[in-house]
């Protein structure tokens, strides 16, 4: 770990301004991802701006009847909120399926959205990784590499990492919107769909945020109703990242939304796949996973995604 300096920001605009002022500064929320990466020198900020105490820990109701979630609301508090449990159960279930109780107590809403991949090559500074060291190659795409956990769609020839968040998958199914403040004090609204970007030739570029831009809130639209479920498939019952996860919102007429975790560099959803919901899991996945390019080790994720959705739709 490199030496770094530290400050506590006092309000969101000041935090963003400070971040733009100091090159190589980073925000720190719960620190559950950032500090691990700093210890391994995968992240090497010279300055940390602590944003836990800038008035973003409330969940309030919006005029449209939705919820505005402060960026620093913890994962535990968000999943336990009675309004979330009642109106957005897919979100509660997704959060509860992630990490462990201790981590969720520390982890924040913004930090969760911006957590980085779990690709094992990203984590070993001695290995090539285009995301960590642009241009060094992709360790996971070498013949003989270990790629079972990695992505099958939306990936590129430079990077096949997945975005590991569970919470974000539910937020994608719910069409959440991220609110930010930029270093010059402007606020922006970014659809969750547009927050994470695909790797293409620049896997180090993971989001649409500009340097120093601070996430202040995540806004949920008015309750969408329907049957909501989150099924996370993994090798052990808890404390593991998803092999595949499915967030499902299904209305009484059979329409709805499907988002996948564990398969792509971002929560994965396509409108044309949603439209197939009344036709069942096979039809949905044919659209949702069209164009997939799995490795030999992770091709099972395609079958698994379809079967997981079939279970949720009670097909068979």
């Amino acid at each position, binding site marked *: 770990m490199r030496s770094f300096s530290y400050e506590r920001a006092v309000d969101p605009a000041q935090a963003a301004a400070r971040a733009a002022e100091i090159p190589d500064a980073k925000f720190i929320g719960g620190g559950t991802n950032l500090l691990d990466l700093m210890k391994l020198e995968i992240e090497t900020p010279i300055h940390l701006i602590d944003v836990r105490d800038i008035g973003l820990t409330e969940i309030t109701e919006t005029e449209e009847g939705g919820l505005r979630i402060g960026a620093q609301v913890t994962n535990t508090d968000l999943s336990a909120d009675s309004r979330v449990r009642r109106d957005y159960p897919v979100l509660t279930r997704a959060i509860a399926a992630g990490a462990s109780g201790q981590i969720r107590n520390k982890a924040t809403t913004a930090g969760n959205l911006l957590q980085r991949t779990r690709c094992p090559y990203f984590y*070993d500074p001695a290995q090539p990784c285009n995301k960590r060291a642009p241009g060094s190659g992709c360790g996971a795409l070498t013949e*003989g*590499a*270990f790629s*079972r956990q990695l992505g099958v769609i939306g990936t590129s020839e430079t990077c096949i990492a997945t975005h590991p968040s569970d919470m974000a998958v539910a937020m994608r199914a719910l069409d959440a919107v991220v609110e930010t403040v930029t270093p010059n004090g402007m606020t922006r609204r970014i659809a969750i769909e547009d927050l994470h970007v695909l790797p293409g030739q620049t896997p180090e570029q993971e989001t649409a945020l500009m340097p120093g831009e601070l996430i202040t809130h995540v806004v949920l639209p008015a309750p969408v109703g329907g049957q909501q479920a989150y099924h996370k498939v993994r090798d052990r019952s*808890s404390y593991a990242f998803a092999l595949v996860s499915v967030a499902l919102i299904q209305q009484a007429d059979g329409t709805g939304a499907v988002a996948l975790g564990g398969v792509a560099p971002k929560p994965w959803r396509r409108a044309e796949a949603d439209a197939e919901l009344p036709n069942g899991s096979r039809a949905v996945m044919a659209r949702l996973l069209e164009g997939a390019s799995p490795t030999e080790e992770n091709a099972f994720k395609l079958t698994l995604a379809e*079967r*997981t959705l*079939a279970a949720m739709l009670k097909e068979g």
Partner: protein
Amino acid sequence: MQFNTPAGQNLFDDAKVVGKPTTRIDGPLKVTGTAPYAYERHDVAEGQLVGYPVLATIAKGRITSMDTDTAKAMPGVLDVITAPEVGEMPSPSDMNVAPLFGGKEIAQYHQAIAVVVAETFEQARAAAAKVQTEYEVDEIGSLDLQAAWEDVMDDRSDATRVGDFEAAFESAPVTIDKTYTTPSHSHAMMEPPASIAQWDDGKLTVWTSNQMIEWAQAALAKTFELDAEDVRVDSPYIGGGFGVKLFVRSDAILAAQAARRVGQAVKVAMPRPMVMNNTAHRASTIQRIRIGATRDGQITAIAHEAISHAMEGGSGENAIGQTRQFYAGDNRLIKMHLATMALPEENAMRAPGEAAGLMALEIAMDEMAEELGMDPVAFRVMNDTQVDPEDPDKPFSERNFVECLERGADAFGWADRNTAPGATRDGDWLIGHGLAGAYRGGPAMASGARIRLTPQGQVIVETAMTDIGTGSYTILAQTAAEVLGVTAEDVEVRLGDSSYPDSAGSGGQWGAASSTAGVYAAAVAMRQAIADHLGKDVEDLSFEDASVRTTDKQIPLAGLSDTEIVAEDSIEFGDFRSEQVVSTFGAHFVEVGVNAYTGETRLRRMLAVCDAGRILNPITARSQVIGGMVMGVGAALMEDAAIDTARGFFPAHDLAGYEVPVHADIPAQEVIFLDTLDPASTPLKAKGVGELGLCGVAAAVANAVYNATGVRVRDYPVTLDRFIDRLPSA
């Protein structure tokens, strides 16, 4: 004390303390976080500095240059000691395969190549990242075990043979011929290797985490070219080892090197992301098993041939061992191959050999029972043997495998199991039942102890035995208490220090049986010493209620002597023990649910029945067995130290990437100990259980997955990706 003939009737047959459920005496220290583990022993040496390791980032080759200038100039850094500058050091022991430190040659990924010494951990770590190393990289060669297997599978030279396997297999009316694979496993113990070292006048003290104190002492003496008397090793608490701490690891060597250089105590812990490749692992295997039997189920031919990867000079994972003795059969063929590969050091991990071997053999037995149309319990019962199948003149000292199976079947409700694969469903879950036999040797090794009786009447036991979380403290207190007529609470047990009498240590499930026998020997010597002190004949004394009873009076141990009475002895095992096979047996029964859609497997209940001689303490023994069962679930369903065959290393770098079971994976676990005694084993008629608890578990789970789904998986771990394509539509 010599143990030259089987134990007769003795005080343990009428025990008041041994064999009684006794809670762990070190429990309060553990749950309050006050048990002193190696890295936190701040009180043992003044001015401790911190060493942070620098590790090689290639699998094979040599260092051509190292630049430490930047690191040395960093704040708080005292020195950087590099392997090339230290030069080659003597190998610590024959059992350490990979070089731990010294010289330019790199034999494994994450081999230690330098240690940075600084005032704080953070300073040392920051500077370690600044050490620049250049390498000349060697070709790592093939890491393809399947290809290596295909090359040697027909080579049966030096195979262990009985009768004529080929002819018998050829003519058997019912046969199977199946191949199984097991992956590499990581010990994944909670406490990483850690040591504090200090030199004083040419003498070395290492506070460390090690299962085998004398081996560690000898290894450090050899490495640093010292007399063993000039090395002290102290390891009273060990946060899990599972075999990786049988031998010294680089933490101890780095700490000792660094402490010598800077003239101050230095502590080193292996950072978690480096434990996987720097230490050791259980090697992967491919195993082919052929069984031939008569139509009524008598095995006539059995062959177990296997290959495992091994480092140059390593011994791989001896997967075939148990098959030599577990089941009957007149014609036998056993052969183990090693494929030398440029992977990190493979070495002993809990139940080395049997753990991986039974993962295959016990699926094969299930497949054969099915082929025969027999109940897998009945098939195993029919092929039980009371003599060594390779040497029918050699009996088992005690073998109650059949009773394990039958008691287990009864307690588990085996008769009501799902008999048709894929036929029982509970909601989205397919329900399956499986069983497996368990077999593991019951070795014993010489072990000594010293007992002190203080003027206040306290009994203190000192032995270089270790407690790796197994309960040694408690069973040794019980043993001394039994012999000297006190309660276990009256006994203080001191372990893990090389200045105490040599002991068997903890490994190969010999620890409990050997060390309790050693403490028994010392306690008998203490009885004699007390008799001498009183000027009495020891035969005329009895020891009870914390006092000594002579024919006419009762003398409390407190105040018996104004000075401490000290007695020491050890147990030595005579050759008679090897004239029979001393082993432990078990049967595992499990119920699983397999999600009919996703193939996720979850355990629903587990039962183990163990035949391991006298159970010294049912609480600590049960804890060993259920821990083994948990590890078996890991081996069955998730543990896989996947190999990057391009670069020769294990990419999983931590306990998030290498998955072992979590609490939510483990259902109700039941353990039944048969009420058996093995007089040929030790004076206490006891054997080990720590490894038995793991043996066979994974196969029981795999068999249950088959029973649930009708899909047979012969490759571990039985993760959903291995069979989701074959899973019937839900």
